[in-house]
């Protein structure tokens, strides 16, 4: 069994290397490929086709991969039947077109193979779990990347994935506070706003500032930070706000804490729109022209790293004391856990990641306006946390993708009027989507209160071996 697995892992690695090598070697000149696609004997009647081919070849000189592929597509569409497309250059064409996807698949395969190998070697037993997680991450990211290449980065699926990843991060950050530390806080939108604004303010290109801050003489800040630095800064500023607010607020219990944090979120929204702060926040005007992302991999990468950090925190000794506080404050304190300090830690960390999430949301929306960060945004996040299950990270992640997909995509048809056989279907009109959505959520909370995952985590082992008999001899 073990030998078979080792052989399999080596085989995977070899296949991966072959795939990557072949892909790289076929990423040569498209010009060469186009020439070879030509039939050998062109008569004068084919002059139009020759011209089209020349256009493709001319276009290639600029070295724009996306344009190349588009030109090639058109050429193939128009003259495909007359070209000498056979199995060999057809494959070459496929490999050329899907080069990046194939590379990603190759790397993912290599990582899976390596992880499998590591998990079978007794000497590396300590690395078993990290290796498995790395393999899962590789599969996920390669999968997302390939789907993006096929579906196009502005497709609905990608929109949902982008927003879903961002909401997942924010939901997990809220779960850290509400689900794992037992602090019922409703300030998430406020911290997202702080993060979004911090990010936007510090990444607007210097020469666009005059235009963005047109009512405030170009604003106060006259420099731009690198994207990642600005994202971390967004988290830090949100965390700093949380630290200050936490000093008085964290001494309150349950409902009072919720009200106080909700109040904070509302106040901060008003403050950011205050005209006097205009040179920094642009008053109640939009902030725009800051750095954004166009590939879905970016929010996936940032959210993935952040969520991984939160998970590691939860499994550390500090995370255990957060859970102790949630379960029983009195007992936790009697075990030597400083309640205030640990609550503050949890609050500040949660807000840090909410700030990072806010920055990502700003990038996703490409514009930021304080008035958009309403309390309803916090409720959306809270809903995701509840649907996913308080105290389940995987639940929150799953629920945010489901939530975003249904609100942005799957229930969209409810907003469009529909006429079947001359009869207009009743109720379907703009706004009906939200009604249905609310009903679904109400049903969910009424009958499925513990959410999708309860407080359990998705367990790969249990998922793969669902039928472990009691007392039976289970060999992996």
């Amino acid at each position: 069994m073990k030998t078979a697995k080792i052989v399999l892992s080596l085989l995977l690695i070899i296949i991966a290397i072959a795939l990557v090598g072949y892909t790289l070697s076929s990423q040569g000149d498209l010009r060469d490929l186009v020439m070879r696609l030509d039939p050998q004997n062109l008569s004068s009647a084919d002059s139009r086709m020759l011209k089209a081919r020349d256009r493709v070849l001319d276009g290639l000189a600029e070295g724009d991969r996306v344009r190349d592929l588009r030109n090639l597509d058109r050429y193939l569409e128009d003259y495909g039947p007359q070209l000498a497309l056979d199995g060999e250059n057809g494959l070459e064409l496929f490999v050329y077109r899907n080069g990046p996807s194939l590379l990603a698949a190759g790397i993912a395969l290599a990582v899976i193979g390596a992880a499998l190998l590591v998990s079978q070697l007794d000497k590396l037993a300590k690395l078993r779990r990290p290796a498995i997680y790395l393999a899962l991450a590789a599969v996920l990211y390669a999968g997302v990347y390939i789907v993006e290449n096929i579906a196009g980065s502005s497709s609905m699926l990608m929109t949902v994935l982008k927003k879903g990843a961002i909401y997942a991060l924010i939901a997990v950050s809220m779960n850290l506070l509400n689900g794992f530390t037992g602090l019922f806080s409703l300030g998430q939108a406020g911290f997202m706003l702080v993060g979004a604004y911090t990010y936007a303010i510090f990444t607007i290109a210097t020469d666009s500032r005059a235009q963005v801050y047109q009512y405030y003489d170009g604003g106060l800040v006259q420099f731009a930070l690198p994207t990642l630095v600005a994202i971390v800064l967004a988290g830090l500023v949100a965390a700093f706000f949380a630290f200050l607010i936490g000093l008085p607020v964290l001494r309150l219990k349950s409902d009072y804490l919720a009200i106080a944090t909700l109040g904070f979120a509302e106040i901060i929204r008003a403050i950011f729109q205050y005209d006097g702060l205009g040179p920094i926040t642009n008053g109640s005007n939009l902030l725009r022209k800051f750095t954004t992302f166009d590939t879905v991999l970016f929010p996936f990468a940032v959210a993935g790293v952040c969520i991984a950090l939160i998970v590691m925190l939860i499994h550390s000794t500090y995370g255990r004391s957060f859970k102790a506080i949630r379960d029983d404050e009195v007992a936790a304190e009697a075990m030597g856990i400083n309640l205030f300090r640990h609550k503050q830690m949890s609050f500040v960390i949660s807000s840090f990641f909410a700030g990072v999430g806010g920055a990502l949301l700003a990038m996703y929306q490409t514009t930021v306006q304080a008035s958009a960060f309403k309390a309803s945004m916090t409720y959306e996040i809270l809903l995701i946390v509840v649907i996913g299950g308080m105290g389940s990270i995987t639940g929150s992640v799953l629920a945010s993708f489901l939530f975003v997909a249904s609100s942005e995509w799957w229930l969209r048809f409810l907003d469009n009027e529909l006429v079947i056989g001359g009869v207009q279907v009743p109720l379907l009109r703009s706004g009906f989507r939200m009604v249905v959505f609310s009903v679904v959520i109400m049903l969910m909370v009424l009958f499925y209160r513990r959410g999708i995952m309860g407080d359990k985590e998705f367990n790969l082992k249990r998922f793969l071996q669902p039928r472990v008999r009691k007392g039976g001899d289970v060999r992996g």
Partner: protein
Amino acid sequence: MTSVADHTLELRNITMQFGGVVAVDSLSLHVNQSEIVALIGPNGAGKTTAFNCITGVYKPTNGQVYYQDQLIISNHPQGKMKALYAGQHKDAYKEVLEPTPDRITKLGLARTFQNIRLFKTQTAFENVLIATHLHRTSNLLTATLRLNYAEEKRMCQHALDMLEVVGLADLRDELATSLPYGMQRRLEIARALATKPRLLLLDEPAAGMNPQETDDLGRFIVDIKQRFDLTVFLIEHHMDLVMDISDRIYVIDFGRLIATGRPDEVQDNPDVITAYLGVDEE
């Protein structure tokens, strides 16, 4: 005042008043190093309140607590309580020292609770593991990034050892609340032991146990006392247990100390009998 040199714990005139109700009235007592001392009294006598004063859950209205010669808690009637105060020794103490329970635990006093307070969503092992948190040397960052690998291993080992001591090692992965009652009590003791205390405060450890279990518990307490070189201060209702294992006993009624001494002395004390059986009207 006498010297406190060899007293592990000393209470001086501890008074706890809730509004007009005096729950503990000028309670003074001391526990010597390596003793097992019991605090007994009828229901509502103020035993648990006294415990809560020692462990920082309540701030005593008046009085002081010393631990190993060191003043750890001190208070005097302040504000509204100045007028309301109905205890004694009103002007004896002027210092204010009100540590939170976690500070007290860090000093080396660990407690269990009368109504078991385990972390309900967690396993027996995790319950004990949490108690090792207070001796951490890692900070948030190193702990999150698993740079404290050695420390984490030590914590787990220590928690396992404590489970072993109370005989729950086989049930380590059971949910704390799914354990039988007696085992939950033991788990609470294991959790308290995991904080590495010098003084163990047990709040009615035998509550709800049958005579057999109570017997076992008594032996167990003596055993861990010797094993970890502990001092034990306990509140108990079960007279058998108290008489068996205690070196000295304090009896309180209506918050006041009514008798003290060796078990056999206390047993024959008329005041104690009255307090427990009630006064004969005739």
